[in-house]
């Protein structure tokens, strides 16, 4: 599988969630570079489009398995589509929003029909549903071209949508065939692809309506950072909740979901290392794995075995993780993210992960998906806050926008590697190494070993 597709500079932060905290960061600045109107648009699309992918895969698996939560998953998917409407309406009016909704909702229905056809081994119905999905992205591509007045040409839009549909289909078919490695490799690529779509889409929208966005643009270094960090944190949430229910149910594909989680950890570590050096990455990994990823697994087994003491121990370890990680972030960001605030947000995130799981095994599927959507959205606040802290901490890396050419629309290239972000990584590493040297308090975490 592709290694690090994007350049990340993670360190979880929190700014958007706690106004006082954000004010602390920006006390002497007029506006954060990661929260410009154009980048906010990009962030919103990142969230809703990637959530669409995550929920579509979940919903298809559950429908195919005959899982009792299948209906709730499909409803969550529909609710996600409904949540896109206000954003579309604010740009293209109610009529445009209605047209968007008509096209987009229909494609969710075709997807459900596709799953049913596969389940029934009804080849004719499967081909018909597949053909309907093909016509969807043609129609949707044309809608986007019209809406953006040609800024986003339909053939380019159709191409990226085609890639998306193919990834959804491939991940599902591999799942059905028991080829779980392909299923979750495709899942990771497919989720990431949604961030490329939103980059292209937000760029077209902003180009079309520059005044609405106060002259800000979405494809900046700070915008890329926010998007990339959000991708990894959101993926962590999606895989954590997925692996917990798979482990609880002893699903055949559980090992492959936990493998995907390890890949996600490796990408996070690589990101941290790219900014804070190998030692920083190793400290992150040590904190992240034992009392977090493994404790989450231990919690599932404690619930399975009805072992209250083990359950409590797992929860305590997650508390330790939140404390250690908060401290890690404070140190990494040179105090821009206070440990106490970061710890509180990590705890909120964990509560969302565990409540999603607890409700699911209790049979409260609607409640579980409600919490899932809340938790998934929260990771984008984390991504934004984190990126904000890094940009604030290292303004020299992000302020020379005039000297940097506007980015090409590399998101249109399907699954190919994004040259844009790799360039940024190289640039950051080359130009900024001196700025980072020695400032990260490595020793502080040694005692935890």
């Amino acid at each position: 599988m592709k290694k690090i597709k994007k350049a990340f500079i993670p360190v979880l932060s929190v700014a958007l969630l706690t106004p006082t905290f954000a004010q602390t960061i920006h006390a002497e600045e007029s506006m954060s570079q990661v929260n410009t109107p154009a980048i906010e648009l990009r962030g919103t699309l990142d969230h809703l489009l990637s959530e669409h992918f995550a929920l579509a895969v979940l919903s298809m698996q559950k429908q195919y398995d005959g899982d009792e939560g299948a209906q709730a998953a499909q409803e969550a998917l529909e609710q996600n589509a409904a949540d896109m409407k206000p954003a579309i309406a604010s740009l293209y009016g109610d009529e445009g929003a209605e047209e968007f909704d008509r096209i987009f909702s229909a494609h969710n229905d075709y997807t459900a029909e596709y799953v049913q056809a596969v389940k029934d081994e009804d080849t004719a119905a499967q081909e018909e549903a597949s053909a309907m999905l093909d016509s969807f992205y043609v129609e949707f591509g044309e809608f986007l071209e019209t809406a953006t007045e040609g800024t986003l040409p339909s053939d380019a839009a159709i191409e990226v949508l085609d890639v998306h549909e193919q990834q959804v289909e491939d991940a599902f078919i591999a799942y059905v065939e028991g080829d779980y490695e392909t299923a979750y490799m495709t899942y990771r690529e497919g989720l990431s692809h949604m961030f490329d779509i939103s980059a292209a889409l937000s760029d077209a929208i902003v180009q079309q309506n520059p005044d609405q966005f106060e002259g800000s643009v979405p494809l900046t270094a700070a915008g890329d950072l926010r998007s990339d960090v959000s991708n990894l944190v959101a993926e962590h949430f999606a895989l954590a909740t997925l692996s917990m229910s798979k482990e609880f149910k002893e699903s055949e594909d559980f090992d492959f979901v936990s493998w995907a989680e390890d890949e996600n950890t490796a990408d996070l570590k690589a990101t941290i290392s790219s900014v804070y050096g190998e030692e920083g990455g190793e400290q992150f990994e040590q904190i992240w794995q034992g009392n977090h990823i493994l404790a989450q697994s231990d919690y599932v087994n404690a619930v399975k075995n009805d072992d209250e003491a083990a359950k409590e121990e797992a929860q305590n370890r997650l508390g330790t993780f939140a404390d250690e990680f908060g401290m890690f972030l404070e140190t990494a960001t040179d105090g821009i993210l206070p440990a106490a605030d970061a710890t509180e947000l990590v705890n909120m995130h964990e509560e969302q992960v565990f409540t999603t799981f607890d409700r699911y095994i209790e049979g409260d599927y609607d409640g579980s998906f409600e919490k899932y959507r809340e938790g998934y959205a929260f990771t984008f606040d984390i991504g934004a806050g984190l990126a904000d802290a890094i940009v604030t901490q290292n303004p020299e890396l992000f302020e020379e926008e005039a000297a940097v050419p506007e980015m090409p629309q590399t998101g249109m290239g399907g699954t190919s590697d994004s040259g844009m972000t790799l360039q940024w990584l190289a640039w950051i590493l080359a130009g900024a190494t001196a700025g980072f040297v020695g400032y990260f308090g490595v020793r502080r975490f040694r005692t935890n070993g």
Partner: protein
Amino acid sequence: MKGFVVIALSLLVIGCSTTDAQDRDESLADEGVRLQENDQTIEPYTEQTIAEEFNLDQDTIDQAERERSKSSEITPASITIPTLDINAPIVEVGQLDNGQMGVPDNGDDVGWYEPGTKPGGIGNAVLAGHVDDRTGPAVFFDLDELEEGDSILVTGEDGEELEYVVERLESYPFDDSPVDEIFGSSDTKQLNLITCAGIFDRDVGTHDERLVVYTSLIDDEEDEELQPSSPTELTVQGTLLTWHAVREDHVAGYRIYSVDAEGTETYVASVSQTERKAIQMTDEQENYIIKTIDYFGNESDAENVTVAE
């Protein structure tokens, strides 16, 4: 691990011949053949069962055990005991109304207790034959001459042959035999031969003792066939040691050992097949090995990983 045959015979009485027979007064008291230690591994670090160690359902393991046992079971057709020059057909017998195991109606056949374990299966399969009949010696007349290590061959309906080896001989009073031991459950594949012994008691109409020859299956294929594969893709990722699951039937989980510079293996943890295939490495050991364990306690070869500097 309980066998699946539970037999509630109140008495083990075999209806040996009831008429003029040679009185025999053979003492079996000094046979002195001791039951060999069964070779099931008991891990030094734990007294847990596989089900407890790997958080598995005992019923699932028992079920697998039964299925595995079935694969080597046969319906017996004849018995051969080379050292005694015995070669006799086997007939099926059941349980009589009085609770006794049935016997063949002649002195030439050997009876297999059909409600019980099949030869080749896990548990005690039981064969009985007369020591004598109204006219003289019968099929198992020389059974008491068997010695530890002698071979017993049982051939199935389809020609399959099983070889058992004599473990020990025991004689019991005719009305006081350890029927649970003879007919009950066992973790191993046993075959027990029964005949009459001792003095014929005309008042009671039976010999006063029963001779039981305990034998066990030579099961050389089993270990090789059932040894699970070793885990693969052992990877050190940060402080985690991860590996890929072995996707075979009846894998219970994995045992992880650390290996120090002297090569001493120290048990670290057991991870169930249903759990995340990862442990956190907590010490400074440089090497780890992982073995796959199946439901039946078989261990795979060790797979090594070296923690990179």
